[in-house]
């Protein structure tokens, strides 16, 4: 028997089976099954790659993986699980419904049409048919709501610093349809620290495709996007999943999550000076692709804490996936629901009135739990919380 060599084998042999990743993996914590753990999945991928088992035997377990990357944070051995997963998924064969769903979600116009159509149907859960096709399980995801139009007062020019540079802002397929005001807020925040957005027509970055195994397509999409955003200026991203994927590409040095860029450019000082009180208890949910994907944990927290009078309460298991995970909540409704309920319980027990997060997927999924549980906690993008602090009248006390 010669030594088997391939990119996947090389990546998987990094795993020495120490098990340190087990308790950080949401699917292992919920099921206790080795096959639903990072170590088990890596072992199965290596076994399939080297012909010890069939890819079909590994597939159900790869399907159940959230791609949350909590295992990479826990792993002392430096296993690149994200790469293993993307490569393995591209090998196990594609499913047509999944592809249709991805297309629907990553073309803003299509997504808008779906949302409008969704309103015409009586059922509460939108992608019922898709969910059944993908998982054979009962769907859990609510029809997303088209957002109410929000408008903001124009910025007070007298308070703004002079413009010192230009940036691109990724509008994001989901963000621009579901939470367009977050994009508007991002522009406002950037302006507050002296940056102007160079507006440009842009397509999908391919993140969702990549995380579901359509690697070649995803890379082509990323290249197309990069060429649209040509010019050596920072690319600011307010969706964690997109940021994480873009940071893997050639232009990685130019890509920044909005929170890290804004903190670096002095927004915390401005918040402390000009932000107003009135927001009391806030908690923060770490989107997987921010915390595990990009290692960004403190920037959003520092910005929130800079708001005068705001008390940031730490969320138990704050960096455990909420189950949204791209299209996971549609493809694996049962597991996603369990994770959502666990997340919600932790959120409620903080006693916070707002939970902030930095990714549209988490946002929509946790907001669904909020609706189902009586709206006791409001779900907002981190930047929305910051914007509120600027909008509130400054208290005189």
């Amino acid at each position, binding site marked *: 028997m010669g*030594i088997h060599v391939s990119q996947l084998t090389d990546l998987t042999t990094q795993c020495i089976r120490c098990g*340190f990743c087990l*308790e950080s993996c949401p699917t292992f914590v919920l099921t*206790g*099954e080795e096959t639903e753990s990072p170590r088990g999945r890596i*072992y199965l991928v290596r076994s399939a790659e080297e012909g010890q088992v069939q890819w079909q035997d590994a597939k159900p377990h790869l399907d159940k993986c959230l791609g949350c990357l909590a295992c990479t944070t826990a792993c002392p051995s430096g296993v690149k699980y994200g790469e293993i997963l993307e490569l393995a998924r591209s090998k196990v064969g594609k499913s047509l419904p999944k592809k249709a769903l991805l297309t629907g979600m990553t073309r803003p116009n299509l997504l808008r049409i779906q949302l409008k159509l969704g309103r015409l149907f009586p059922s509460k859960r939108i992608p019922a048919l898709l969910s059944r096709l993908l998982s054979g399980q009962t769907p859990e995801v609510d029809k997303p709501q088209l957002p109410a139009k929000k408008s903001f007062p124009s910025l007070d020019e007298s308070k703004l610093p002079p413009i010192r540079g230009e940036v691109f802002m990724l509008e994001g397929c989901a963000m621009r349809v579901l939470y367009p005001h977050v994009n508007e807020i991002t522009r406002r925040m950037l302006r507050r620290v002296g940056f102007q957005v160079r507006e440009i027509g842009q397509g999908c970055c391919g993140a969702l495709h990549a995380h579901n195994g359509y690697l070649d397509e995803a890379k082509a999409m990323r290249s197309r996007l990069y060429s649209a955003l040509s010019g050596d200026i920072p690319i600011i991203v307010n969706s964690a999943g997109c940021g994480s994927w873009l940071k893997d590409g050639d232009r990685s040095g130019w890509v920044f999550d909005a929170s890290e860029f804004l903190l670096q450019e002095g927004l915390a000082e401005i918040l402390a000076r000009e932000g107003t009180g009135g927001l009391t208890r806030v908690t923060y949910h770490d989107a997987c692709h921010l915390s595990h994907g990009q290692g960004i944990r403190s920037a959003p927290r520092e910005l929130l804490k800079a708001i005068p009078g705001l008390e940031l309460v730490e969320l138990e298991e704050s960096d455990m996936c909420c189950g949204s995970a791209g299209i996971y909540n549609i493809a694996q409704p049962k597991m996603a629901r369990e994770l959502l309920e666990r997340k919600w319980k932790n959120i409620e027990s903080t006693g916070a009135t707002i939970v902030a997060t930095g990714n549209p997927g988490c946002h929509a999924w946790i907001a669904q739990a909020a609706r189902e549980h009586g709206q006791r906690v409001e779900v907002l993008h981190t930047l929305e919380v910051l914007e509120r602090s600027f909008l509130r009248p400054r208290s005189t006390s």
Partner: protein
Amino acid sequence: MVSELGRILSPEQVLSGPGAQRAYDCDAYSVDRSKPMCIVLPESTEQVAAVVRWCAANLVPFTGRGAGTGLSGGALPALGGVVVSTKRMNQIVEIDIPNRCLKAQAGIANKRLSDAVKDQGLHFAPDPSSQSVSTLGGNIAENAGGPHTLKYGVTAQHILGVTMVDPEGEILELGGKVPGGPGFDFFSLIVGSEGTVGLVTEAWVKLTPLPTAVQTALIAFPTIRDATETVAEIIASGVIPAALEMMDRGILVALEAAFGLKYPEGTAALLLVECDSNLSAEPAGELVQREIETVAAICQAHNAIDISIAQDEAERQKLWHARKKGVGAMGRLAPSIVTHDGVIPRSKLPEMLDFVYEVAERHGVKVANLFHAGDGNLHPCFYFDDRDPKQVHAVIEAGEEIIRKCVSLGGSVTGEHGVGVEKQDLLPLMFTPDDLRLQAMAKQIFNQGNLCNPCKILPTEKSCVEHKKRWRGVAW
């Protein structure tokens, strides 16, 4: 089998098929592999008992499994059969702060026990480096130790009682909340039996006050000898550190790659020394200060090139993080590792380590060492490519040679990782045939029919020889 077990439990508590069988065919000791027929995930003592009764009635072998971090193949289903996973039994059942104990299910991760009582100033003292994942049941089965074993003792000293299912499927309560009790001490036979005399489902564990004062120092030495000689002298001085750990160059390289940690130029070995006390605050601080100063003086006398003492808890955690994740970080150096485990009298450390490096070189395998030096508990860690059968065999041979040397120096074939399948053929080095027969009889009494974790600990029984050919060293 699957459908019958599915009826006894529920279908979704039984896993089968090639994927699951593969995933459960080894633990963290990946040299030997053998796949089970199926895996069950019971949720209560009664469910475990029901599964075991079914196995006993149908003569199907079964093997308990916690987190599968064992390093000697303990959770390997040597004769196939059923793997009984405790990972859906991970609840704390009762916490009794006044009596400083708690009861938990066997599948809970060790560290969660300590986390649960942290605010009350208590912890579960056994701290294997794998504590963030390895389970209470696995710790009991292996009588796990850890860095703080030197002062606080191994798992056995911290277990008050267990609920277990014997190999016939009967539920037994041994020991209890209070120590002592009349009759034979069967209970100490259970701890360390590597899951061969029944499955532990719940346990009462002792809670120990967290230290009120602690000092942690990391000392760099220019040669291995300087470090090893220091170890024996620290203990001889009368100071009993809470922990006394050693790491050599190989580990430093891995740690540097994994966490970007930097060590003084010319470092060949590091000692991590921790002194603590839980006396009431004032005298504790002074005592610990005095102890760490004594340690520092001894280190200086042995040519230490750098002594850094953690200034706060964050710094202390950082030092420990590197130690605890050190073996994991070895994955940066090679595709596979095997961590050996042998014990020698502390005074023989210098001689022993020289031997380890010499053996590794002779067999053409690479080795790094990070271990509980204060206990004389050695962990030579071989790193190699498990896709190459030649390397696999070289690693097995080098390991056996090292263990033989431990025994010849008056030590033992295992300190804390257990015998499992890895070391069973080495036991005759330590025991006479009569001793072994006696041990076999003890095992027989509890494990008639040898269905409960067969082919483990004792030198290969006849029924296992043929099977063993199938899984020994198959690695990949």
